[in-house]
């Protein structure tokens, strides 16, 4: 992080450091875990990242994180219905996991607090590079979450929904999921609540050989909450991961995505929609490492910007020296519907192999007037026609998921957002 000394700590930095002192005796962990926590809080003592740190250039966390709520042990979050009926639901209510999750055959749930206490979660707490503010915040304070294991060859018929629900205060959780060789699963990561919380959430996914996973992040925090999240995955040989990210709320949101292909034939798809409204800031930052030969990826991000909302997409693809025959394509398209909104896109390709196909593109558009005319010529009034077209712009990405139950569930979330912000 910042090696130079900050002139003065911000109230948020002071609050985090003080909170760590107060919480220390309550935080679970063996010696190894507690050492990582100490390192992490040292990182925060050096100061939150500013725009001078390259990866935080468009999201000046030090300036944007202006208040930090106290931990609130009395906050009561309630479990909610999953987005797909019949899902296996594991909830984290205000940072606390459930002792008993009814698991389908071949799936096991373990409370992360137990894995912190016995030290088996320690290795996962290491920071990602030198600017890992979210990782540091989470490592310092994480108290619970789930470890989920899906055994080799298990094909789940219904999604597993991991709910992280807040009702104010601070929550710092971690979701670690291992999907065994040849297993198939849909995993929903639900991030929502009704408080003005500060939350950090780190998800770690490991896909075994030939595993196929669709992971949906559905983030619908209220416009008072700060949500700092990471999703980290390793994709093994011939394994396929589709990550769908929907940001539809939050005052200050940063969703980091760090993915690495670790076996030949690995395939990664990132599909994201950012629905931005009000006076909010939402940042999706991806670092994808094509670390072995013959791996593929596509990334499509669609943004709708209204009000005074600001959005950021940073997409970095690193093709390692031996990762020949990599095929990677990235696109970021923004529909800018307000004069006061803004969206910043920064694609980066860093290629050390010579036999690869890599491309990226970014567009910012308004509503297509030909399309608008067509719909109006069928009697749809201008407001409704615009609504249909804006929804269509993002629905296109959802429909590509090709699973009727998921598409329906996500479109319902989309309708909710449009009903509230149309």
């Amino acid at each position, binding site marked *: 992080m910042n090696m130079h000394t900050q002139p003065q700590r911000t109230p948020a930095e002071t609050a985090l450091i003080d909170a760590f002192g107060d919480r220390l005796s309550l935080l679970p962990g063996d010696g190894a875990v507690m050492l990582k926590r100490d390192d992490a809080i040292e990182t925060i003592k050096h100061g939150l990242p500013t725009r001078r740190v390259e990866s935080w250039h468009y999201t000046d966390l030090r300036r944007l994180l202006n208040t930090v709520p106290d931990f609130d042990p009395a906050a009561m979050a309630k479990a909610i219905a999953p987005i797909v009926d019949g899902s296996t639901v594991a909830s984290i209510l205000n940072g606390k996991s459930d002792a008993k999750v009814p698991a389908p055959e071949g799936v096991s749930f373990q409370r992360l607090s137990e894995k912190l206490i016995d030290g088996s979660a320690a290795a996962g707490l290491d920071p990602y590079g030198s600017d890992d503010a979210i990782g540091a915040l989470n490592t310092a304070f994480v108290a619970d979450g789930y470890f989920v294991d899906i055994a080799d060859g298990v094909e789940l018929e219904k999604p597993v929904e991991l709910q992280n629900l807040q009702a104010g205060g601070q929550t710092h959780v971690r979701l670690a999921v291992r999907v065994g060789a040849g297993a198939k699963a849909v995993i929903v990561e639900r991030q929502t609540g009704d408080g003005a919380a500060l939350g950090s959430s780190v998800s770690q996914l490991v896909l075994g050989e030939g595993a196929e996973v669709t992971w949906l992040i559905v983030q619908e925090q209220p416009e008072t909450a700060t949500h700092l999240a990471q999703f980290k995955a390793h994709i093994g040989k011939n394994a396929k991961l589709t990550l769908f990210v929907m940001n539809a709320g939050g005052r200050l949101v940063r969703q980091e995505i760090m993915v690495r292909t670790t076996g030949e034939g690995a395939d990664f798809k990132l599909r994201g929609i950012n629905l931005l409204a009000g006076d909010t800031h939402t940042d999706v930052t991806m670092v994808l490492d094509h670390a072995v030969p013959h791996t593929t990826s596509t990334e499509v991000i669609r943004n709708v910007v209204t009000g005074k909302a600001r959005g950021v997409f940073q997409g970095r693809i690193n093709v390692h020296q031996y990762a020949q025959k990599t095929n990677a394509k990235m696109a970021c398209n923004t529909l800018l519907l307000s004069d006061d909104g803004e969206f910043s896109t920064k694609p980066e390709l860093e290629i050390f192999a010579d036999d690869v196909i890599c491309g990226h593109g970014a567009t910012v558009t308004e509503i297509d*007037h*030909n*399309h608008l*005319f*067509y*719909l*109006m*010529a*069928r*009697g*749809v*009034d*201008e407001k*409704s*026609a615009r609504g*249909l*077209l804006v*929804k*269509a*712009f*993002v*629905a*296109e990405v959802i*429909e590509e998921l090709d699973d009727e139950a998921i598409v329906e569930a996500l479109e319902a979330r989309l309708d909710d957002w449009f009903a509230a912000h149309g």
Partner: protein
Amino acid sequence: MLEIKNLHARIVDDGTEIIRGLNLTVKAGEVAAIMGPNGSGKSTLSYILAGREDYEVTEGDILYNGQSILEMDPAERATSGIFLAFQYPMEIPGVATMEFLKVAMNEQRKARGEEPLKIPEFLKRVKEAAASLSMDMAMLKRPLNVGFSGGEKKRAEILQMKLLEPKLCVLDETDSGLDIDALKIVSDGVNALRAPDRAFLVITHYQRLLEHIVPDTVHVLYKGQVIKSGDKSLALDLEANGYAGVIGEAA
């Protein structure tokens, strides 16, 4: 039903005048064919009737059932009963065809003060209309016009026309891109809609379509004006002798 009086119109962007003093009257129940060489203003006329903002009327008026429509936006014109079957229907990714049809049909009903259609009744109507045009329902599960062939798009336009039950139907080169079988299906679809209280403006390049949709009147458009009107024999004459004779006569 439709009365176009000394209409002048130009392209907003560059001011080019396309329609230059056009007069045309179409009565209820009438099928009027508009023919003319390329660049005569046929498609422009259809867009102006539908209310496309790229064109500006500088003189004259368009009366529909005695009322000027110039101040109405495309949606208001559509809900008052004007329908344009596009020459090149737009593909709109992400808009589900069925949802679009439901919204459009209910907008028509709303304008007439009727309740929205119940889902089973809506599905029944769409299925019947699709069957009559030999359209596969699977097509309608796709986003609007996306991946449709040229012929499928034209059928989809006629399907919409059937479902929306307009009073003034403007068909812009509906025959272009259709093979002979599709042309027959589309024409049958149009003929089935002919009614005493409904008028058609059939814009076409060729006599071919008019063998299937037999017009009551034929009007030749040239340089933004109707230069000759007649009955269906005029179309045959044009087919045999080309536009040169008619144009020469007018000049």
